Structure formats: structure tokens, C-alpha cells
């Protein structure tokens, strides 16, 4: 169980915001954190890991206090946290295997390194230097390295945002697998709605330094749940006027769906908006294609 109540003033590109956060997360849950950039998501992870100090508050993990305004502020080394950075932060002077071995504790056997390389499917890369790896491979190494110390809390700062969608889906499965196998409590920062739906037990929406919503993804992400038979979440990539109607192209995963809409609906949308597409009164056909 994590208890986290923190306060910190942040200088961001959008001006000063007051990060004022309270949440508790149960052991073994995977929680996603999302919100516009500059809302303080990364800072929250950094504060939990001990890389940034809040001005006041209290952080406790399983009855151990990590931070207390009064007198406690454990350094990152003592917090037993696995942290995966957005830009991977692999050590360029070491091979993949050495990167993992570097993380070993004093009395820790090398077996965990081998196990993690096997689980993450990076054994064949073990003698390569990070600069020779692709983004997806680097991310797998970074994940494996973060788990060598067997932390109980895994913090992931948009680890998948730089990857193409195929690699992203694969790594999502890897993360889910590790999360269960190592019995982790995981906090994942994500921008991707489908990722949030797929991965999280609960999600927290952050706005201007405050948590503006917390709960299961479908409740939080979909403000007005449609009454449709099924719903898809996608991004508007094109709005076109054809005669009297509008055609809106929405990208969902790897597919593009074209939807006819009225002018009233169309003028509310912009390219890049996240939208919910729901279908009503239809009986969808499912056909096997492979």
C-alpha cells in the first residue's frame, strides 16, 4: 500500500502550478496516470522515487515512511523503487548484460539477471551496447534493469510513447506479465487512451497539479458513457466536408474509421481530438480472417 500526499510548487512552460496531490494505491495494483503535458505527472513519479523533494507532505510504502515534511527524506538508493525513464537512461559504456549486473545488490546472485533477460527476451542482445539497439529493445533492457533489485514499486514514465504501435502492444504485454509475475505495484504515466484501458486497474487524471478524477478507466475517460452496443476510442485525423454532411476520419489502433456526421457535431471537433465512437442498434458481424 502506498500512501502519498504531497505539495510542491512547480515552474512549468505553462506557468506556475501548485502540485497538490493525495492518493493511496493498494498493493499489486497497476495504476495509470494521465493528463496534459505540464500537469505534473513526471514530477509525481520523481517525488515517489526520491529524485525530487516535495515542499511538504508524507509518502509511505507498506508502513515504511519515505518522506515526511518534518524530518524524513529517504534517498532514492533506499527506496526500493524500479524507475523506467522516458529516454531509457541505459549506460552507454556497458553491454546489456553489464547494465543489468550493475544493478545487482551486494549479496545478490547473478541468477536474477539471467532470469530477467529470459523473461524480457533480450538474451541474444546481452553482449550488445545500448547504442546499437532499437527503441523497443532499449525499453526492454531498461525494464529488466529496473527489476534486478526486485523492487516492490515500479514507476514507468511514458515508457512506450516513442515506440511504434506494434512494439507498443508487445511491450504492454511484457509489462503486464512482469507486473503479475513479480507481484509489483505499478504506476504508469501514459498519454494513450487504449493503453490506459488495456493496462490499468484504476486510472488517475491529473489537471493543473490536482487529481481531477480517479477510478476505473471507462468511468474516468468517458465522461458521458454512451448507450451504444460497443465503443471505440480513437483520434480524429481528418475532417472533410462533403456536400451537406461531414466525413470524420478517426484512427483507432491501426485502423481508420470514417464516420458521417452532421455539421453540429463536426464543428465541435478538431484534428487531434480524442473521441469516443459508439455504435447503437447494430448487430456487428464477426468474421475470422486468419
Amino acid at each position: 500500500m502506498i500512501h502519498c500526499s504531497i505539495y510542491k510548487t512547480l515552474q512549468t512552460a505553462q506557468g506556475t502550478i501548485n502540485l497538490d496531490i493525495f492518493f493511496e494505491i493498494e498493493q499489486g495494483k497497476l495504476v495509470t496516470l494521465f493528463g496534459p503535458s505540464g500537469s505534473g505527472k513526471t514530477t509525481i513519479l520523481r517525488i515517489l522515487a526520491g529524485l525530487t523533494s516535495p515542499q511538504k507532505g508524507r509518502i509511505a510504502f507498506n508502513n515504511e515512511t519515505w518522506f515526511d515534511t518534518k524530518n524524513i527524506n529517504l534517498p532514492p538508493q533506499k527506496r526500493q523503487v524500479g524507475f523506467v525513464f522516458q529516454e531509457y537512461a541505459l549506460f552507454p559504456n556497458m553491454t546489456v548484460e553489464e547494465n543489468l549486473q550493475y544493478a545487482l545488490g551486494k549479496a545478490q546472485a547473478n541468477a536474477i539477471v539471467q532470469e530477467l533477460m529470459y523473461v524480457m527476451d533480450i538474451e541474444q542482445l546481452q553482449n550488445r551496447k545500448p547504442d546499437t539497439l532499437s527503441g523497443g529493445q532499449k525499453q526492454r533492457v531498461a525494464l529488466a534493469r529496473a527489476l534486478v533489485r526486485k523492487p516492490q514499486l515500479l514507476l514507468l514514465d511514458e515508457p512506450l510513447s516513442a515506440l511504434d504501435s506494434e512494439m507498443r502492444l508487445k511491450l504492454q504485454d511484457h509489462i503486464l506479465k512482469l507486473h503479475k509475475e513479480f507481484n509489483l505495484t505499478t504506476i504508469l504515466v501514459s498519454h494513450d487512451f487504449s493503453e490506459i484501458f488495456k493496462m490499468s486497474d484504476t486510472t488517475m487524471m491529473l489537471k493543473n497539479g490536482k487529481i481531477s478524477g480517479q477510478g476505473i478507466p471507462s468511468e474516468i475517460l468517458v465522461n458521458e458513457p454512451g448507450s451504444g452496443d460497443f465503443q471505440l476510442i480513437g483520434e480524429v485525423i481528418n475532417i472533410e466536408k462533403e456536400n451537406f454532411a461531414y466525413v470524420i476520419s478517426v484512427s483507432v489502433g491501426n485502423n481508420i474509421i470514417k464516420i458521417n456526421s452532421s455539421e453540429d457535431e463536426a464543428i465541435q471537433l478538431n484534428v487531434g481530438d480524442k473521441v469516443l465512437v459508439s455504435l447503437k442498434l447494430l448487430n456487428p458481424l464477426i468474421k475470422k480472417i486468419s
Partner: protein
Amino acid sequence: MIDPEPLWLTAKLALITTLILFILSVPLAYWLAYTKARGKTVIEAIVSLPLVLPPSVLGFYLLLAFSPAHSFGKFLENYFDVRLVFSFSGLVIASIIYSLPFMVHPVQSGFAGLSPSLREASYTLGKSKWQTITRILLPNMRSSLLTGIVLTFAHTIGEFGIVLMIGGNIPGETKVASIAIYDEVEMMHYNNANAYALILFIITFIILLTVYFLNQRFSRSSYI
């Protein structure tokens, strides 16, 4: 035939200066690169002073400081029985001060150029500052370290004014190659002066060439 002693003395002075400066500069550069302390700018300005001050100014004040007629020099002589004026140890100390920016600047920008997440990743993996510096930071800024080492070495070889001010011209003690050249010219031995000068010219050129060559290889090898 020229006397090889000044050349050996130059090499000895450059080696000792570089070694001591390296040991002093790594922690200083680390502090300058990461501190948010207010005094930082003052320290940075002090470190850079030898870049702009005439060596004779520095030499003059060091001469005063080291002189047994003044308090610091007297203190050294009374308590440690050391006299730094016109001695090799004095030259080493003067060279360290004079070449300080040549070591600190490249190493500092080496630290500053590393992504902060490397350091932070190491901390979250439970590693101390010391382990992080020796196993992650320094090995990933080899080219900056090399630049600092070589610039310091070459700059010490090229010292003249400051050596003349506080070292004088004592054979085997403070008569380094650059002083020997001056000496030979004064005595109209142009051939000898030329021999010393040419040797210094070639050595420093080879040193610089090696650095640029190695640096190119370092930067390329990280992408292969």
C-alpha cells in the same frame, strides 16, 4: 649539442602537474557542474582567471606569497622547512594554478553534457554517488577527460612567464625547456635554441594530433 636536462624537467613538470590537477579537478568540476550554490559563479570566475591574467601577474603574486620574507612563505619555511620560491615544488604549485581552467573546463562540460537521467538511474538502482561517478559518469565522458589531460599537459609544456617569475633559471631544478630556449637566445646560441624549439614544436603537435584522432574514434565508436 643541447643539454637534455631541461626537456626532462619539462616532461616531469608536465606529468606531475597533470596528475595532481586531474585528481583535484574531477571533484571540483563535478561540484561546479551540479551545484546550485550561490558561490558557484565566484568560484567559476576564479578558476578562469589564469586564462586572461598575464602569467607575469600570477607569477608576481605567487613570488610574493612564496617568499620567506612574507607571512605565508615564512610559515611554510618555519613549520615545514619548505621554500617554494626558485624550487621545483614551487613550479608545480604555480603550474597547477596556471593550468587549472584547462583541466576544469573540459571536465565540467563533460559532466554537464551527460544526461541527468544516467545519474538518477544509477541512484534508483541503489548505487552511491561514488559508484555512480567512477562507473557511470567518468567512463561516459572519456573524451572530455582526455581533452582536459592533454590540454593541461601541453599547456604546462608551454609555460614561460610564470616559470621565469617564480622558478628563475636554475639548471636541474627550474630550468625547463622554454626557459632554456630563452637562455640560448640571450647567449646568441641560435642553433641550440632552434633544437629545443623544434623538439617542443613537434611534441606538442603530436600530442594534439593524438587527442583529435582519439576523440574522433570515441565519438564514432559510440554509434557503431
